[in-house]
C-alpha cells in the first residue's frame, strides 16, 4: 500500500509501485501546480513510489 496526503486528505493506493507522474495524473493534478515529496524530499516525476511510502503532495494553489 502507498499512502498519499493531498490537500490535508489522506488516501491509500492499493499498489506496490507507481510513478509520481502517473500518480499526479490519477489525482487530476497538473504537475505545474504541485510538488510531490517523500520524507520531506522533493521527487522528480520519473521517480517511483514504493509499497510503504508516504507521499505528500504540495500544491501551489491550496484547494482547502
Amino acid at each position, binding site marked *: 500500500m502507498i499512502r498519499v496526503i493531498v490537500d490535508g486528505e489522506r488516501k491509500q493506493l492499493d499498489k506496490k509501485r507507481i510513478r509520481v507522474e502517473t500518480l499526479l495524473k490519477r489525482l487530476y493534478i*497538473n*504537475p*505545474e501546480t*504541485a*510538488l510531490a515529496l517523500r520524507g520531506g*524530499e*522533493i521527487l*522528480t516525476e520519473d521517480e517511483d513510489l514504493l509499497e510503504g511510502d508516504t507521499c505528500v503532495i504540495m500544491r501551489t*494553489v491550496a484547494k482547502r
Partner: protein
Amino acid sequence: MKCKKCGEKAVIRLRAHNISLCKDDFLSFVLNSVQRTIKKYKLFVPGEKILVAVSGGKDSLALFDILQRLGYPVEGFYIDLGIDGFSQRAQEIAGEFLAERKAPLHLYSLREEVRAGVAQIASRLKRSPCSLCGMMRRYIMNRFAWEKGFSTVVTGHNLDDEGATLLGNLINWQVGYLARQSPLLPATHPRLVKKVKPLARLSEREILAYCLFRGIAYHEERCPHSKGATSIKQKEVLNLLEYHSPGSKIRFYQEFLKNQEVFPGLEPHEMRECTVCGFPTTRDMCQFCAILERFRELTPLQGQIEERKD
C-alpha cells in the same frame, strides 16, 4: 534524471526551461533569475533603502531570503488588515522569519488606525473585502515607505500572479493597465515611491520548491476571503496551457513586456493632493481616505463601542 549543470542526481524538473537540476544548481538558478530581473529592469539603484512587503506567505519570505542573499539591504513591512483567523498567525510567522534573519520588521495595523478590520469595513460599505484590500495595501505601503524614507517597495508577485493579471487585463482590454504592467513601476510623483517585483519571472512552483529546499517555514493557510477568486481561475487556465505547451507562461509574460509599446496607454490623469492625507490622487480625496470617511459616517458609534470593549 541528471542535473543539466553538474550531472549529479536531479531533484527538480523545470519543463519551461527544459532542464532538470540538483538542489544546489536549482538554488543558484533561482538567485540568478532574480538577479537578472533586477539588472534587466534596473529595479534598484545602489545605496537605496528597500522595504519588502512580507505577508508571511511563501512568495514574500522567499523574496526576502533571496534579496538578503544577493546582498541587498532589505527591511520588512507587515500590513495587518485585521482579517480574523488569518492575519495574526501570518504576522507571527513573518516576525519569526525576520527575527531569525536579524532584519528589522515594521508593522502597520488597520485596527489601530480605524478600529476595524478590512472585512468589517467592507461589509459596512456593502463591498467585498478583496475590492478594498489591494487598494488599501498599496496605499499603506506607499505612505509608510514615503514617511520612513524608503525609495522602493518590493512585493513578491511571481510569474503566475503577473500572468493572471495580464490575462485579466487582456480579457477586459484594460489598455491603461496593459501599458503600465511591469516588474518596475516608477515613482511618478514626489510622494509616490517606486514599486518593484523581482520574482516576476519565477513560477509559483519554483518558489514553492525554493522554500522547501531552504527550509523556509511560511504561512500555508490562505486568506478566508480568497475562495473562488478570479485570479485562481486565471492561474489554472495558464497552468493548463503550461502543461500542454511548457514555457507558455514565461513566453506570454516576457513577449508581452517586449511588445508592450503596442499599448499606448491613456493620457496621464492630472495628479492632485488628497485634501485629507496629502498623498496623490486624481480626485479631491484619495480612495483610502474616502473609504475611511464613508465607514466612519456609517459607523458613528464605532469608537465608543470599541472603547467599551477594551
